[in-house]
């Protein structure tokens, strides 16, 4: 049901998440934005248990912003991802763990490099060139293995993303209709049309 995809390219990270908010067989909302902007150069797509997702995402958003307020400087993607992972790992053995899967993508302005992290609800974190969560991952990952170009332009990245989304639309029973796509690069975060 809930699908999110992400890939890196030359100096950018593209993240796409579906916009369907469903409860059992009913689509409650068809224009939900599941990608949060954590800082000027950091994006996070979330999926998982309803409620847990938005609670955890907002908790992360506020804490990342708090760091920036206190230190006059935003956390780098690598550090932010580690902090987020640690929060989930601590939550795992608490009384009621968050069941949230994340794709954290950011551009490190100091090193001038894009970073993408796949984080699951257990607190497993992997730094990857491309990633996906949800049932869509079963279709998207092999396509991305074949067609992904780590040095590709934004247009190349959008082409590959279109392939992944179309394959999911064709083969997944309850495929989402619409996706929000955001890009983060040296100029910051912006939404793009597929």
């Amino acid at each position, binding site marked *: 049901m809930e699908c999110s995809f992400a890939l890196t390219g030359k100096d950018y990270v593209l993240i796409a998440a579906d916009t369907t908010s469903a409860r059992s067989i009913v689509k409650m909302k068809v224009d939900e934005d599941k990608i949060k902007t954590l800082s000027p150069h950091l994006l996070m797509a979330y999926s998982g248990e309803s409620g847990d997702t938005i609670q955890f995402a907002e908790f992360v958003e506020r804490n990342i912003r708090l760091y920036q307020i206190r230190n006059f400087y935003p956390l780098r993607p690598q550090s932010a991802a580690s902090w987020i992972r640690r929060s989930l790992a601590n939550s795992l053995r608490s009384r009621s763990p968050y069941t949230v899967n994340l794709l954290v993508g950011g551009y490190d302005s100091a090193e001038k490099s894009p970073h993408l992290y796949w984080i699951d609800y257990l*607190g497993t974190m992997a730094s*990857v060139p491309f*990633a996906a969560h949800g049932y869509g991952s079963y279709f998207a*990952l092999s396509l991305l293995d074949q067609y992904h170009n780590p040095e590709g332009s934004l247009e190349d990245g959008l082409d590959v993303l279109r392939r992944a989304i179309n394959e999911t639309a064709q083969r997944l029973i309850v495929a989402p209709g619409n996706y929000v796509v955001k890009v983060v690069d040296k100029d910051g975060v912006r939404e793009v049309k597929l």
Partner: protein
Amino acid sequence: MSIMEHNGGSVIAMAGKDCVAIASDLRLGAGAMTVAMNFEKIFPVSDRIYLGLTGLATDITTLRDRFRYLVNMFTIKESRTIEPSTFAHLVSSTLYSRRFGPYFTEPVIAGLERTPSGGLKPYIAGADLIGCLNFAEDFIVAGTASDKLFGVAEGLWEPNLGPEDLFETISQTLLNSVDRDAYSGWGAIVYVITPEKVITRTLKGRMD
């Protein structure tokens, strides 16, 4: 499916003549799906000690950070570098402290231990998820391919291998064992620790 097998991965350590080697695969999975092919499971603890961790990936990362903290505190308090045998007992007590809600990892420790006469002796040890230490003299195996690793290592290992021969032996052991395991593989990395230096090599293996 067992929690220890969810993410997959295997580690092996072998002792040679004045050297030790530790090697692991690079796969990170979520069940049958492979998520990453660059997930390293071996971490330096000091110049002469390396720690390999298998099992649940989130606990691998958490324990890596925890041991980094504990070893830093040791170094600050004792003004000296920790020895492999001491570190092994530190690993054991850290795991046992969670006896009834354990970290789902099986660590493998490889290093060179300082002897009273000032020389360096190879040291390898392994533990189960609640900290029971195993001080084998020949090799230590852990992970989803551990049964296969036992078999191949038993066949290929011999005592007093030099650094180059030890590298060949541990590499062949790892590669052939993970090729028979669905949850391990997708690349491999080998560290050979000698008194002078540590040589890191990545192996070309089957990417399936």
